């Protein structure tokens, strides 16, 4: 719809444009700048062309981190989306319990990332942690510091604990928008519970599910704080995800050029995968 035109409105957008320029575009350009040059400090730069990009793309270490990252995100989505839907379906629809559940579900979302990490770091410790100690008493050999599998399980359980609520709350909002008549009609049509889900609830949740999948994918793909606090990327490199690797490279080794190239590739990968999710899921909705 084209409305009667009034260009004055553009001036209102100007401050936002300036802010975005300072907060996003300028740092990004800096990164681009670093990614194509080499420096030995002292503000001396040498043109490096696409060397850093080649190096990063061929690096086994980064490929391994990327593999771990994709596996991690895939597991997170595979657990949190169905679990979130399941939780949402089983939440009471109205009354005092509905409010109670909503508050309960929102609690993990209110806790800062590093605090979540710290909680689980302590919780899982074999010597003093409730979880770790109990497991040990039960005769299960659990130690996230030494055992790669245990470390993975800890990080995944922690993320599921932290973020499933978000998926559940989004789905819950989607479910609330379904008029009662649909459920009544389904009862009269003698639709099974599964069919009610498949033909009424799932189609009506499609919009919010898209948002949930995108948010969870992006967040899990960029995960840093929690594994850093709990495992520090270890044991070995078992839980060194892309962002942890990136920080090691940039801050630990001060390899600014490769790190910058790495960041740009990282950024493009997220953009690309999000775009693919979006296209596939909105296509189905039509």
């Amino acid at each position: 719809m084209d409305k009667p035109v009034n260009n004055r409105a553009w001036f209102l957008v100007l401050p936002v444009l300036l802010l975005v320029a300072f907060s996003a575009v300028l740092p990004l350009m800096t990164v681009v700048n670093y990614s194509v040059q080499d420096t030995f400090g002292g503000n001396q730069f040498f043109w490096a062309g696409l060397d850093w990009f080649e190096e990063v793309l061929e690096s086994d270490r980064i490929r391994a981190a990327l593999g771990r990252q994709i596996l991690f995100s895939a597991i997170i989505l595979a657990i949190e989306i169905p679990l979130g839907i399941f939780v949402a379906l089983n939440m009471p629809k109205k009354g005092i319990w509905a409010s109670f559940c909503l508050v309960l579900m929102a609690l993990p979302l209110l806790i800062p990332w590093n605090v979540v990490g710290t909680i689980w770091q302590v919780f899982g410790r074999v010597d003093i942690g409730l979880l770790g100690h109990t497991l040990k008493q039960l005769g299960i050999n659990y130690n996230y510091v030494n055992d790669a599998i245990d470390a993975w399980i800890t990080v995944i359980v922690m993320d599921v604990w932290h973020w499933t609520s978000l998926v559940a709350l989004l789905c819950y909002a989607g479910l609330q928008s379904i008029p009662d008549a649909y459920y009544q009609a389904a009862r009269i049509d003698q639709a099974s519970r599964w069919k009610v889900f498949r033909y009424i609830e799932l189609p009506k949740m499609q919009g919010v599910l898209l948002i949930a999948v995108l948010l969870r994918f992006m967040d899990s793909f960029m995960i840093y704080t929690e594994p850093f606090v709990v495992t520090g990327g270890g044991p070995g490199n078992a839980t060194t995800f892309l962002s942890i690797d990136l920080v090691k490279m940039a801050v630990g080794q001060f390899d600014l050029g490769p790190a910058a190239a790495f960041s740009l590739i990282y950024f493009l990968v997220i953009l690309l995968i999000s775009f693919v999710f979006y296209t596939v899921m909105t296509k189905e909705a039509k």
Partner: protein
Amino acid sequence: MTRITLENLAHSYLPRPSHDDDWALKPMNLTWEDGGAYALLGASGCGKSTLLNIISGLLVPSSGRILFNDRDVTGLPTAERNIAQVFQFPVVYDTMSVRENLAFPLKNRGMPADQIAARVDEVARMIGMTAVLDHRARRLTADSKQKISLGRGMVRQDVNAILFDEPLTVIDPHMKWELRTQLKDLHRRFGHTMIYVTHDQTEALTFADQVVVMHDGRVVQSGTPQALFDAPEHTFVGYFIGSPGMNLLDAQIDGATAHIAGAQIGLAHGYAPLSGKVQLGIRPEFLRLGSGTEGLPFTIHRIEDVGHHRIIRGKVGDADMNVILPEAQEIPADASRIVPDPGRAHIYVDDWRVDPPARERAA
């Protein structure tokens, strides 16, 4: 095929109703015969939807029983009552095709595929959607979606009753004609017991053999469309049916004479002395314009041309009075009186109609 009986049925949404107003449905007894076409007519909030939900099993009544034939179904869930229902707004399964939508209730009941296909084709033909059977339901217009809902209600042949909850709300006037005719046709062909809930008198009267008029949680009259029009038992029925509704004038009745606004008119029957709020009710269709001293004094305020007839709005004394005149009939320039047809006038005491012969016998 089922006879539906309501026995002392009443419902309140409050846990401990004490006052009369606490009841959404006041105690009622009704029988709906097998294969009848019924309408439940009333304004928003009169309790008609509550009653429909009790019949379909979405609500359990606070007291009383509901019987399908002789079986008490009061506590049975919806799925076990074997009924079909069409809602106010179209309910379609978006991701399914039109065909799958129509087949859904049959499939869920495990009907063999070839029978389903035959039945779906038949229903599609009835609702005129054969051409779009394989289209996705999501993209259709509201009209078409509602037709699918109707079709899904009709697709099972063994249902006890089909309930309609204001099904034509979202439909254009022209389409309403078509769908209503189709519904009547379907009723004639399959003989299902049908209950149609609406606030629209035209829909109720044209659809049903028997119309149940509800007001304030009560059934005020149940009768044929003709009975409701000719002899409304309650002033609400007089007002609610007819467009405009029945005119009501405060009157004093003296035998077979009514004294209204300083004038007198003769009645078809004599009445015993009446006490309470006495009113004469006459429909706008049964009035004639006159002049001189005949009938009642009338002042014209406004004339509305509705095409095939005209509505003349005016006053008798302080009371509003509407008269309907056919298209061809002239309005006399000196019209200052209205003359009611005495055989069509009714007397109401405290809103209920007084049956003259009964009173005559009692007197």
